[in-house]
């Protein structure tokens, strides 16, 4: 082994924030369904505790032996709307509390899957789950929720879009933290290891280990060495860096799966920023040659970045899945926050950026008096981008009570902090009031 290669790895980990962002164990709860919700919850608790007993321990072991930080150990479960549908309960808080309790006892960071998939309409349980959301998000700590309101194959369920606007508002009334744990999706994926949107799809194996890698700092550093070179060189540099980062993810995932006696699922090739200095996707775009993220050229630079990360990562691991793309959350990225404060980045540009990256309008604080219809309309726009472009899009919008545009909100930890951003004041209410289904686009009929 060459000394330079060893030193390169050490620098990536010590100075450039290279890490494995998450090891996520997906657990099917289909065999826990029971018409008696107390019995169902007992089975859920027992299954999670049994399957994930060693998740944190194994994660820490790998961290110590290989010297790679593994930031999060998480669990995703089958969407609870499916599991709880057999019960007669009017509210699914009990299920959420069961997940929360198991997560706390296991010492994991988050548990995802308090979810409903309603892209074409509601089934028994879906609407009950959705109505439970504000209370669940407020009264549990580690439970993450998601609702899929659209897909390329089904169109967009505008009734659910309208409902989710109200739910987000109502959750925000309880606490400004609630909505950080909930995502509204179009084209949600079944093997996503990242929160808040992770759930374990019904087409998955009973238990599986998925891994999410990260490393914006590593990419930024690599690009510092090719300043002034053509975009071809930029793309090639990102590919090579992504390859190395992904190989590390593949190694960690394989080891974790082996030690836990669970099949290895996928590596999610995502660039996930944190508020830490030097761990920013925005700063990669600026390194490519933009004075500030959000200015003209941002979408093109992001498109290149997103594509090159995939091309580099795809050969580095056995199975790629999840969201696999650059994340552009505002509050979790020091460069994005700076750009919003400088007035160079607004919601409209962020929306354009979501057309070429994973995932969507993420961790964006908006004024607390934003009408529910406007939030629904933002969800509809994002869902439309996802539906038409055959990609996942998501909305994690955070109305902040009593805060006005420009004021700061502190979420803490990896969730960071964000300035409240302005939204369009003109009303969308009559469109949202129509409800119904936006039909699936013509290019979805591929058979």
């Amino acid at each position, binding site marked *: *082994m*060459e*000394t330079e*290669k*060893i*030193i*390169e*790895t*050490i620098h990536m980990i*010590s100075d450039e924030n290279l890490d494995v962002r998450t090891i996520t164990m997906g657990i099917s709860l289909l065999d826990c369904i029971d018409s008696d919700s107390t019995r169902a919850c007992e089975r859920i608790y027992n299954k999670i505790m049994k399957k994930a007993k060693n998740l944190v321990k194994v994660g*820490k*072991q790998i961290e*110590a*032996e*290989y*010297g*790679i930080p593994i930031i999060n150990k998480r669990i995703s479960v089958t969407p609870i709307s499916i599991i709880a549908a057999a019960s007669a309960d009017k509210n699914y808080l009990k299920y959420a509390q069961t997940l929360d309790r198991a997560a706390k006892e296991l010492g994991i960071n988050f548990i995802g899957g308090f979810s409903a998939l309603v892209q074409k309409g509601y089934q028994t349980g879906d609407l009950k789950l959705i109505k439970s959301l504000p209370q669940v998000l407020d009264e549990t700590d580690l439970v993450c929720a998601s609702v899929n309101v659209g897909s390329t194959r089904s169109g967009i369920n505008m009734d659910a879009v309208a409902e989710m606007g109200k739910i987000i508002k109502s959750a925000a009334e309880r606490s400004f933290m609630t909505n950080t744990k909930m995502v509204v999706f179009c084209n949600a994926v079944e093997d996503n290891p990242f929160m808040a949107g992770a759930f374990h799809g019904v087409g998955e194996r009973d238990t599986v280990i998925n891994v999410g890698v990260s490393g914006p700092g590593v990419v930024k550093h690599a690009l510092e060495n090719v300043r002034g070179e053509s975009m071809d060189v930029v793309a090639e540099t990102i590919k090579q860096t992504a390859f*190395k980062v992904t*190989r*590390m993810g*593949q*190694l960690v995932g394989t080891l974790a799966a082996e030690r836990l006696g669970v099949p290895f699922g996928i590596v999610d090739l995502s660039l996930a920023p944190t508020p830490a200095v030097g761990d920013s996707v925005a700063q990669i775009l600026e390194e490519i040659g933009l004075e500030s993220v959000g200015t003209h050229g941002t979408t093109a630079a992001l498109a290149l970045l997103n594509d090159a990360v995939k091309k580099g990562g795809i050969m580095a691991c056995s199975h790629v899945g999840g969201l696999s793309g650059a994340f552009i959350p505002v509050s979790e990225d020091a460069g994005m926050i700076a750009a919003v404060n400088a007035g160079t980045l607004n919601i409209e540009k962020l929306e354009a950026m979501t057309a070429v990256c994973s995932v969507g309008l993420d961790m964006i604080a908006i004024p607390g008096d934003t009408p529910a219809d406007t939030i629904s309309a933002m969800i509809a726009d994002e869902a439309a981008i996802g539906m038409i472009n055959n990609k996942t899009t998501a909305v994690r919008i955070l109305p902040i009570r009593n805060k006005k545009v420009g004021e700061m909100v502190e979420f803490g930890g990896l969730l960071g902090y964000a300035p409240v951003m302005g939204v369009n004041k003109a009303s969308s209410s009559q469109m949202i009031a129509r409800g119904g289904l936006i039909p699936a686009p013509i290019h979805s009929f591929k058979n």
Partner: protein
Amino acid sequence: MKAILTTIGKDQVGIIAGVSQFLAEKKINILDVSQTIMDGYFTMMMMVEIKDEKADFAVLSEELNELGTKLGVEIKIRREEIYHAMHQL
């Protein structure tokens, strides 16, 4: 199991002796050593073999950290597979 121990820092008397002595006390065998000055920093790579398959890396890393502080260098130990995974096809 094989691991790579890296020592990086300002060159001074006693670094190799200090690290080797620690490893000898722990019954960790040194298989290969290379040492160079890179960007003005003393840089030493050691391929070592840990016989005890159940060795606690967390404890070992912590002890190496303490030794590093004493010697004024940064000492890290990682199993070798990570380097192979990242840099070799």
